[in-house]
C-alpha cells in the first residue's frame, strides 16, 4: 500500500568488533550502508573522524572476482547440463549448504591456476579459429584450379608467349571470345573449370599482343598469380586440408579440456559468489569512518526492522551505540515498497516505470485492480488464460526463482485468472472450440461502452489520487481548485450526456447542466489563476481548459485498445479453428492435421496476444494513469546483504 517508513541509523562500535558487526550486517540484510562523508556528518564530529585506511587486498579481491566471473562465463557453454532457454530467462541457482559454501571458498587461491589454464585455452581457440578461417579462404581460392595439373608457381609468361590465369563471369565468356576472334591474332583459351558463376581458364597469346590483354581487361576479369614454387593445385589443396583437419582435431581437444574443467562449474560458481560477498564487505568498509577506537557506520533501515537491527548488533558486541532518527526534509531516502500479498506482484509494473520517490504515494495497489481487469479484457480467452495459469503455476512450483522472477510469475498467474473469468463470461475457450455459438464480434458495442466506461473510471480515479496527494501535502487550495473543479466538470459532462441517451430523473439532468456550467467556469478560473492580470487569466484559463477537455477525450479513446485487442484474440482464434476444420475431411490423417494446425495456430495467437495484452495494459497505467499524478525517480533500498548470484544457501543462519 505504501512506501515503507525509513529511519536513518548510525552505529558507533568499538573498533575491535568492527569485522564481526559488518558480517552480521551482511547476513541480516537489514541495513543499507551509506558513505559517511561530507554533508552527512555534523562538522564538529567530522574533525574527529578519519576515513579508515583501505585494506590492501581489496584490489586483489576485485581481480579475483573478475577472474571467477570469467571462469564461470567461459565454462557455462561447456557444462554438462547445458542451460535450457528457460534457464536463461530465469537462471535457477545451485543449492549449497553453508558448510559446503565455506569449504569451497577456502581454497579459492587454487582457482587462479584454473583461470590461467582457461585463459590459455581461449587464446589458443581464437588462434585456431583465425587460422582455420585463413585456410578455408585459401582452399576456396585454389579449388577452381584443381584440374590444372602443372605447378601453379610455374605458370608465367615467356619472352614470346603470354600465359595468364584468368577468371571472368561465365556469361561474358562468349563475348570475350567473339571479340578476340574479331581481333584476328592467334590465341588459345584452355578452360579449367566453372565455379560459382565464373569460368576459370588459361589464356595464351603472343607476348607483344597488348590489344588482346586490353580486350580481356574490358570483361571484368580476375588475374591470378601464385608465388614461385607453389606446387600443383591438387597437391597444395591436400596440404591445406591436412592442416585444417589438424586444427580441427586440436580444437576438439581444447573443447574436451574445457568440458573436463566445466565438470566442476558449481564449485567455481560458489567460489565466485563467496568472493563477491567478501568484496562487498570490503566495499562497505570503504564507506565507514572512525576514530582510533570507534568505528561509525551510517545507513538506512526500515522502521519496522530498527529493533531487530539493534538487537543483532548488541548480540555481537556490548560496545555498541545504535541511534535512529527520522529522515530530514530534502534527504535522499532509499525506497522500499510495502504491499499486501495480492498487490505485491504488481510492483513489477511500478518498477518497470520507476520507483516512487520517498515522499510520493506508491501507485501499486491502485494500478493492481485496473491492470487485473484490463489484462483480462485484452486477452479475453479462457482457454489461453488456463494455459497461462498452468504454465506459471508450473514455473512457480519447479523453478528456483529469484524474488523478482517469482513476482513476475505470480503476476502472470493473477492475470491468467482475470483472463479466465472474462473469457468464461464471454464463452471464449480457444475461440469457438468449446462453445460453437461464441460470437467474437457480437458484443462489439457493449464491449466498446464497457472499455470507455472503465477508461472514465480509471481517469477519474487518477484525478482523485492527485487530489488526495495534494491534500496529503497540505495543499488544499490546489486540491479544491485544480482537481475539485475538474471533477465537477467531468461529473456534469457525464450526467449531461447520459441524460440525452438514457431517461434520467429531471433533477439529475438539471443538476448535470448546472454542474457542467459551474465546473467549466471554475476550471477556467483555477487554470488561469497563476496569471497577473485579468485578460491573461482568461486567455490562459480558456486555453488550458480547451487542452484539458480534448486531452481527456483523447485519453478516453485510448481505452478502446482493450476492445481492439480482445477482438484480435477472439477473431484470430476463431479463424485458426475454421482453417483447422478444413483439414478434417482428409482421409486417415485428417484428424491429426486438424489437431496440429489448431495447436500451432493457438500457440502463436496466444503468445502474440499475451504480449500485446501485457504491453497495452501497462501502457494504460503509465501514460493515462501515471501521467496524471506520478513522477517516480525513487532510489531502491538495497540493504547490505549476503545475496548470491549463482548458488542458493539452503540452510541460512537464523541469527547471523
Amino acid at each position: 500500500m505504501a512506501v515503507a517508513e525509513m529511519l536513518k541509523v548510525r552505529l558507533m562500535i568499538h573498533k575491535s568488533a568492527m569485522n564481526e558487526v559488518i558480517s552480521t550486517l551482511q547476513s541480516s540484510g537489514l541495513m543499507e550502508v551509506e558513505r559517511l562523508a561530507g554533508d552527512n556528518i555534523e562538522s564538529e564530529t567530522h574533525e574527529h573522524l578519519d576515513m579508515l585506511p583501505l585494506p590492501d587486498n581489496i584490489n586483489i579481491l576485485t581481480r579475483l572476482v573478475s577472474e571467477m566471473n570469467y571462469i564461470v562465463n567461459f565454462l557455462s557453454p561447456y557444462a554438462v547440463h547445458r542451460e535450457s532457454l528457460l534457464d536463461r530467462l530465469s537462471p535457477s541457482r545451485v543449492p549449497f549448504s553453508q558448510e559446503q559454501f565455506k569449504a569451497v571458498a577456502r581454497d579459492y587461491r587454487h582457482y587462479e591456476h584454473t583461470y590461467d589454464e582457461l585463459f590459455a585455452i581461449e587464446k589458443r581457440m581464437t588462434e585456431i579459429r583465425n587460422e582455420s578461417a585463413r585456410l578455408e579462404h585459401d582452399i576456396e581460392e585454389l579449388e577452381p584450379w584443381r584440374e590444372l595439373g602443372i605447378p601453379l608457381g610455374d605458370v608465367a609468361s615467356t619472352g614470346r608467349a603470354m600465359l595468364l590465369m584468368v577468371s571472368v563471369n561465365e556469361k561474358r565468356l562468349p563475348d570475350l571470345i567473339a571479340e578476340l576472334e574479331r581481333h584476328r591474332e592467334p590465341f588459345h583459351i584452355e578452360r579449367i573449370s566453372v565455379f560459382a558463376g565464373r569460368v576459370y581458364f588459361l589464356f595464351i597469346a603472343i607476348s607483344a599482343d597488348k590489344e588482346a590483354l586490353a580486350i580481356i581487361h574490358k570483361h571484368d576479369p580476375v588475374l591470378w598469380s601464385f608465388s614461385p614454387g607453389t606446387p600443383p593445385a591438387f597437391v597444395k589443396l591436400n596440404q591445406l586440408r591436412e592442416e585444417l583437419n589438424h586444427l580441427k582435431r586440436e580444437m576438439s581437444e581444447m573443447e574436451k579440456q574445457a568440458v573436463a574443467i566445466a565438470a566442476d562449474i558449481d564449485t567455481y560458481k560458489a567460489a565466485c559468489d563467496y568472493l563477491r560477498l567478501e568484496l562487498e564487505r570490503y566495499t562497505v568498509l570503504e564507506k565507514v569512518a572512525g576514530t582510533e577506537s570507534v568505528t561509525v557506520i551510517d545507513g538506512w533501515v526500515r522502521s519496522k526492522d530498527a529493533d531487530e537491527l539493534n538487537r543483532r548488533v548488541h548480540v555481537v558486541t556490548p560496545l555498541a551505540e545504535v541511534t535512529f532518527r527520522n529522515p530530514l526534509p530534502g534527504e535522499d531516502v532509499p525506497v522500499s515498497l510495502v504491499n499486501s500479498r495480492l498487490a505485491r506482484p504488481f510492483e513489477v509494473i511500478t518498477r518497470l516505470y520507476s520507483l516512487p520517490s520517498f515522499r510520493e504515494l506508491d501507485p501499486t495497489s491502485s494500478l493492481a485492480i485496473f491492470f487485473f481487469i484490463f489484462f483480462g479484457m485484452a486477452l479475453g480467452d479462457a482457454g489461453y488464460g488456463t494455459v497461462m495459469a498452468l504454465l506459471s503455476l508450473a514455473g512457480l512450483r519447479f523453478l528456483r526463482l529469484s524474488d523478482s522472477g517469482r513476482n513476475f510469475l505470480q503476476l502472470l498467474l493473477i492475470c491468467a485468472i482475470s483472463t479466465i473469468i472474462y473469457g468464461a463470461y464471454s464463452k471464449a475457450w480457444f475461440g469457438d472450440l468449446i462453445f460453437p455459438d461464441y460470437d467474437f464480434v457480437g458484443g462489439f458495442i457493449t464491449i466498446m461502452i464497457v472499455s470507455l466506461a472503465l477508461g472514465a473510471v480509471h481517469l477519474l480515479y487518477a484525478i482523485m489520487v492527485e487530489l488526495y496527494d495534494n491534500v496529503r501535502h497540505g495543499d488544499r487550495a490546489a486540491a479544491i481548485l485544480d482537481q475539485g473543479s475538474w471533477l465537477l466538470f467531468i461529473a456534469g459532462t457525464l450526467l449531461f450526456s447520459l441524460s440525452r441517451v438514457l431517461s434520467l430523473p429531471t433533477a439529475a439532468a438539471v443538476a448535470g447542466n448546472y454542474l457542467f456550467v459551474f465546473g467549466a467556469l471554475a476550471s477556467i478560473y483555477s487554470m488561469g489563476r497563476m496569471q497577473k492580470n485579468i485578460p491573461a487569466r482568461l486567455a490562459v484559463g480558456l486555453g488550458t481548459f480547451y487542452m484539458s477537455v480534448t486531452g481527456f477525450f483523447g485519453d478516453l479513446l485510448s481505452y478502446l485498445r482493450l476492445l481492439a485487442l480482445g477482438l484480435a484474440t477472439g477473431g484470430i482464434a476463431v479463424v485458426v479453428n475454421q482453417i483447422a476444420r478444413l483439414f478434417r475431411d482428409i482421409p486417415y490423417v485428417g484428424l491429426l492435421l486438424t489437431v496440429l494446425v489448431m495447436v500451432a495456430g493457438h500457440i502463436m495467437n496466444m503468445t502474440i496476444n499475451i504480449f500485446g495484452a501485457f504491453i497495452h495494459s501497462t501502457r494504460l497505467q503509465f501514460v493515462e494513469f501515471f501521467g496524471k499524478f506520478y513522477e517516480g525517480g525513487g532510489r531502491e533500498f538495497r540493504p547490505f546483504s549476503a545475496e548470491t548470484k549463482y548458488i542458493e544457501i539452503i540452510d541460512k543462519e537464523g541469527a547471523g
Partner: protein
Amino acid sequence: MDILGIVLAFAGAALAAGLAGIGSSIGVSIVGQVAAGLITEEPGKFGQTLILQALPGTQGIYGLLVAFLVIFKIGAIGTLKAVTPGQGMAILLACLPIALVGLFSAIAQGQAAAASIGLIARRPEELGKGIIYPAFVETYAVLALIASILLLQGVAL
C-alpha cells in the same frame, strides 16, 4: 450474382491484410536490424530486444482481423452472399483506415522501437520507457482498427 460487389469486397480484405502486413514486416525488420547489431555486443539483451521487435507486428494482425471480418461478412468461407456494387464499395472503403494507418504506423512504430533499442543498449533498466514510446504510435492503429470495424458493422448485407 453481381460479381463486381464481391470483387470490391475482396479488394478491401486484400488491402487490409496486405498493406498492414507490409507495414508490419517493414517495421519489424527495422527493429530487427538494429537489434542484431546490439546483440553482437551484448547477447544477454536478446529477450529485451525481442519485446521491442514484436511491437510493430500488431498492425499486421489488425489488418488480418479486418480481412477475416470481411470474409465472414460476405461468406467467402462457405457460400458467398449477394453483394451489390454499392455494398462492395462500402466494404472496400471500410477497410481503408486499417490498411493505410496500419501500413504507415507500423513503419513509424518500427523506427520508434529501433530508437528504443539504442536506449536499452545504454540503460537496460529503462526498458519500460523504451516500450512506451513505440506503444504511443500504436494508438492510431488501434483507432483505425476501431474505425474500420465500426464502418464494416455499418454495411448491411
